[in-house]
Every structure is written in C-alpha cells, then in structure tokens.
C-alpha cells in the first residue's frame, strides 16, 4: 500500500473570541482579548476573579432539549463539530465504518459532577439525574459527536491534561495513516470555568491573579507574567485521507504530516527546565513529517503565561531548532483566548491551519517587556506575513504529567 497522506478539510470552533472559526480568527488577528471578569457570585471566594468564557453561549447555538442532557463540554464539542462537518462539505454519503472521532477533554464534565453532587446533598439520591454519567465521562464529547455523525471506525478520547487536544489530533492522524479510517473528526474541548477547578489551579499558584486588569493578565513571554488564565471552548479539525478528499472534490486547507510524542519523567506538574522531552518531541515530529527545521516558518506555542513554562519551552525550541529558530514566527495565542486546557492544542491547531491558509501568523498580545530569557522570535501585537511557497508550521502542547505533543502541518 502506498503511503497514505492526511489533509485538513474542515474546521470548527467555539472560543472566548467567537462562536465560530471566522469570528474567532478575525478577533485573534485584531489582537483582542477574550478574558473578562466573572459575573458569578462565587468569584469572591477565589483569589482569581476572571476567566475567558466562550463568546457565544451554547443556548444561542442549540435547542434547550438537546442541551439539558449534555455537559457544557459536550455542547462545545457538538457545536464545533457541526461547523467543521459543514465546512468539510457535509460528506454524509461517506461509509460510516471509515469515519472516526477523536475528541479530548482534560477534565471531563466537572460542572455536571459538581452540580449533581449538590443535588445529591440537597435532595437525595433519587433526584440525581440519570444523565449524569454520560454527561461527566471524559469521553462524552467524543461519544456524542460519534453518535451525531454515526462514526463507526472508532471513537476515542486521549487524556493528557493540557496536551489532550493536540494528542487527539495526532491520534486521528494515525488512524488515517494506518488505514483504520478515511475521515476523522478530531480536536478537544474544555468547560471548567467553575469555582472548584479554579480554586484548585489557584492553589497550585498556576493562575494569574491580575484582578485589576483581566484583559492583560494572560501575557506569555512578558517579564511580569504571573500565571495562566483559564479559558473554555473547543476546536475541531476534520482530517481526511488525501486521495479520498481529492476524489470527492473537497476543499483542502493543508496537510498534517507528522507528530512527535514524548514524556518528561521529571515532575507531576512542573516543566523540565532542560526541556529535553520537548526537544525530542520536535525532532520526532519533523522526522515523522520528513521535514527539517529549515522548513518551519511558524509555531503556535504552548506558552501559557506561567513564569517557569514559557522560558522552558522557548529554551527547548531554541535547542531543538538551532539557528533555524531565527526564521520561525512564534505566536502565543493564549494571550487572547486564555488556556483552554484539553481544548488548547485543538484550537491552536485550528489557528495554525488558518495561519497557513492566510499566510499570517497571529499576534501575541500583552508583552510590555519581553522576558530577556526568551530567545525565540515572538510575533508581537500585530499579525506577521508568512512567506510564499511551500511552508510548514508546528503546534506544540504540554500537559501536567509531563506529556509533550508536537504536530506538523504544511501547505499543499
């Protein structure tokens, strides 16, 4: 069998910047922040009073009766998948035994879990919703999308904290490469803007506490960054075998040509300051794609705005790419979207695909004083044009637990 190639034929998203890909991408290029003060009473219990909630509530995008048996993360998955499927040309005639779904969530249905725990305590066991388990299970978003589109090649949910969304896309890539499927709906979602996960991340000192200026709190690579900003939403990419896409006349955005996966074996939450796991993931991804560092013109960084993480990542990039890092335009889009945890690698892959399509690297906002320890070329404040011709770009994502995922996309 000849080598199967994998392309992107559909995109979908619901994010703190917009209810779909177009509105999100426009806001991203304009350097807008999706971070706002929370309006919930419970914010006063927390040291952090802000987050990046989705710009468009699911209630504006789906029917009440459908919503009430779906966790918010599952609502995001369906909304973004419907957009992506339509964008792919709604290939409903496809053999469903060749259609897969890989959608991740870092935490699962935590809002459902907490709501039902409160009902149990207040009203008793008989009042706990019979929909609780399908709503809180982390594979719920993938399973609901699989049901919607009748996917029968396999429905999967890799879980690796904040690397989950990227790992899902990588898994989907392998499903097509290995001839298990011709089309896979893949990505990641998260809905954890709730007092418990926020209190828990705050307890780790992982969140920014810049309560007096929320829109400027997420500031990757800035000297005075003080933690990440929790975001919610999700991103979906439809991956498809190249010949299959050509045969049906699908619009093809770009190719996904490789992935690299490693683990640190260093600490449960802290990044390895040497970044050797990240370096290896980059090298494996390039080798897997049959490309070299000189082909890479853009990288959507993980860069969450934590003091330790951003520099460790930048150092690893510099070491892995060497002098070729000089021509890589690095964008830290969490400066605008906040950190979508299990959705992060997925929306950032959507951004990478759009960047290759429009030949524009999105900006990084809120850098007032670039941290001198950051030795990569950061795209600041305004988008930057990417070169013409054949180009390739990377999306890297890391998760608590020491998970490293690097995806390679290239123009076709």
């Amino acid at each position, binding site marked *: 069998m000849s080598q199967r190639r994998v392309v992107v034929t559909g995109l979908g998203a619901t994010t703190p910047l917009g209810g779909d890909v177009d509105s999100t991408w426009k806001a991203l290029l304009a350097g807008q922040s999706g971070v706002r003060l929370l309006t919930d009473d419970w914010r006063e219990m927390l040291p952090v009073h802000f987050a990046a909630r989705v710009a468009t509530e699911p209630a504006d995008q789906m029917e009440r009766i*459908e919503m009430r048996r779906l966790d918010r993360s599952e609502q995001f998955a369906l909304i973004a998948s419907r957009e992506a499927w339509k964008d792919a040309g709604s290939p409903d005639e496809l053999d469903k035994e060749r259609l897969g779904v890989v959608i991740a969530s870092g935490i699962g249905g935590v809002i459902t879990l907490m709501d039902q725990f409160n009902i149990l305590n207040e009203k008793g066991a*008989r009042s706990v919703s019979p*929909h609780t388990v399908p709503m809180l299970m982390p594979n719920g978003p993938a399973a609901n999308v699989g049901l919607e589109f009748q996917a029968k090649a396999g429905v999967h949910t890799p879980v690796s904290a904040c690397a989950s969304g990227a790992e899902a896309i990588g898994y989907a890539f392998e499903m097509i490469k290995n001839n298990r499927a011709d089309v896979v709906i893949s990505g990641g979602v998260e809905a954890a803007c709730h007092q418990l996960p926020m209190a828990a991340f705050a307890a780790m000192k992982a969140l920014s506490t810049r309560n007096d200026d929320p829109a400027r709190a997420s500031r990757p690579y800035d000297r005075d960054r003080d933690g990440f900003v929790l975001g919610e939403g999700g991103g979906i990419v439809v991956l498809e075998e190249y010949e299959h896409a050509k045969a049906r006349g699908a619009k093809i955005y770009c190719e996904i040509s490789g992935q690299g996966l490693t683990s640190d074996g260093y600490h449960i939450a802290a990044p390895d300051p040497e970044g050797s796991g990240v370096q290896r993931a980059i090298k494996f991804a390039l080798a897997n794609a049959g490309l070299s560092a000189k082909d890479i013109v853009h990288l959507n960084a993980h860069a969450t705005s934590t003091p330790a993480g951003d520099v460790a990542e930048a150092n690893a990039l510099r070491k892995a790419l060497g002098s070729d890092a000089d021509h890589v335009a690095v964008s830290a889009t969490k400066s605008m979207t906040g950190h979508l945890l299990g959705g992060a690698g997925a929306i950032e892959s959507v951004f990478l695909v759009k960047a290759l399509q429009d030949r524009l690297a999105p900006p990084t906002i809120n850098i007032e004083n670039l941290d001198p320890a950051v030795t990569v070329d950061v795209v600041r404040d305004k988008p930057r044009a990417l070169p013409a011709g054949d180009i390739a770009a990377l999306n890297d994502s890391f998760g608590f637990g020491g998970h490293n995922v690097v995806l390679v996309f290239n123009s076709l």
Partner: protein
Amino acid sequence: MALAQADVLAGLKEIVEEVAGIPAASIELDKNFTEDLEVDSLSMVEVVVACEERFGVKIPDEKVTDLVTVGDAVDFIVNASK
C-alpha cells in the same frame, strides 16, 4: 384527597415537555412513552422522579415498566393519591 385525572394529565404534559421536548399538545392518554413520544429509559427516570415531586406520590421502580402509556401513568398517579 385523590387528584383529578385532568390535573394529573396537564401536569404530566408539562413534565414530558420539559424533560423530553415533546410538545404538550401531542401528549394524549393513549400515547406510548417509548414508541410514540420517544421518551428513552433515562428520560423516563426523570419523568418518574419529577412526577413524584409534583404529585407527592411514590412510584416504585418495579411499577415503572408497567407505565407503558400516558394513560397508565395518569391512572397510577390518581390511584396512588387516594
């Protein structure tokens, strides 16, 4: 005092509409929950618990399978309220 059949039917219509999204106008005594109204087993649990709260009756789990039609449920609730 026993509940009136008409009041129970009206209340049940609201519950089924809330839980399963079936328009109240299409819910009649002879309708079958699963075949006509597409109330699945999980939603039926919600309907039963909501009926217990609303009408102040107990509907034991072993009786739920006997409630095939809307009329079965209305009759059970009216009798249980006596």
